[in-house]
């Protein structure tokens, strides 16, 4: 978004929310998305659009399995976690990186919450460490 000098803006429009958790490894053997942790509560900007970034250190227990870390939204708005918006890695070689998603159509000024979810494909285990969530207006 572009601000001009002296321009008035809504409080919610310039707020970045973030948090960090999982100082120790957490493992999930479920093949459907399972709550990993609840994360930041944020106020939806007037545009109804936010950018969500999730960061994690991710690996599968088996060399032939996939591990997924995804976000979901609850509160006034509800969005379920999906593979298409997930951070994913194949095999037991770990990676720490991030993905970004642009989410539109949220209810302006509503208080929503982001949660992280985990799953694997074949039940060997999906492992996660050092997660972060960042939400910015977009």
């Amino acid at each position: 978004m572009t601000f001009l000098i002296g321009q008035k803006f809504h409080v919610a429009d310039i707020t970045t929310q973030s948090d960090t958790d999982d100082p120790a490894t957490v493992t999930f053997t479920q093949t459907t998305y399972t709550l990993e942790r609840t994360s930041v509560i944020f106020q939806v900007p007037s545009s109804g659009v936010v950018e969500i970034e999730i960061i994690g250190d991710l690996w599968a227990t088996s060399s032939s399995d996939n591990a997924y870390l995804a976000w979901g939204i609850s509160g006034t708005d509800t969005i379920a976690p999906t593979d298409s918006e997930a951070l994913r890695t194949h095999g037991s070689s770990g990676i720490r990186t991030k993905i970004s998603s642009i989410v539109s159509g949220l209810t302006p000024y509503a208080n929503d919450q982001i949660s992280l979810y985990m799953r694997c494909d074949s039940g060997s285990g999906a492992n996660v460490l050092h997660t972060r969530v960042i939400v910015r207006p977009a």
Partner: protein
Amino acid sequence: MTFYAGERMLVTDAMTFSGSGNTTTFSTTNTAYTYTGLQVTFIVPHTGTVKITITGRTWSSSTTAHSYIAMGVFTAAGSVWSPQDNESFRIYGTNTIRGSVATILPGLPPGQAAQASLYLRSEVNTATANTLHTNIIVRAA
């Protein structure tokens, strides 16, 4: 950070700073974080908080070792943030990947210049950590 409705925004608060480096592979066997040569100078917004995103391609020469990219921040007073594994972008093994991570860093001195620098380390000194096509983006937050 706290803004109030109608508050006037400082010009520096809406600015983004970025820089790119490592057009050829930078490698190290150091297990301590080693400066890669990429540094971005930025002006700290009046909130004192910035979001720093680091991006790069990285890989290890060993199938059983990690390669880590991380960032450090300096001001005129010295180091205010040291590179660390739990804020890094990392990959295990010889498969290369280009990805990124972001850090929200509060408590910087408003209005002053600061530098964000990129570092690389290897998990073991018998393997080489490598990086290529890196960049740093700093935004007010």
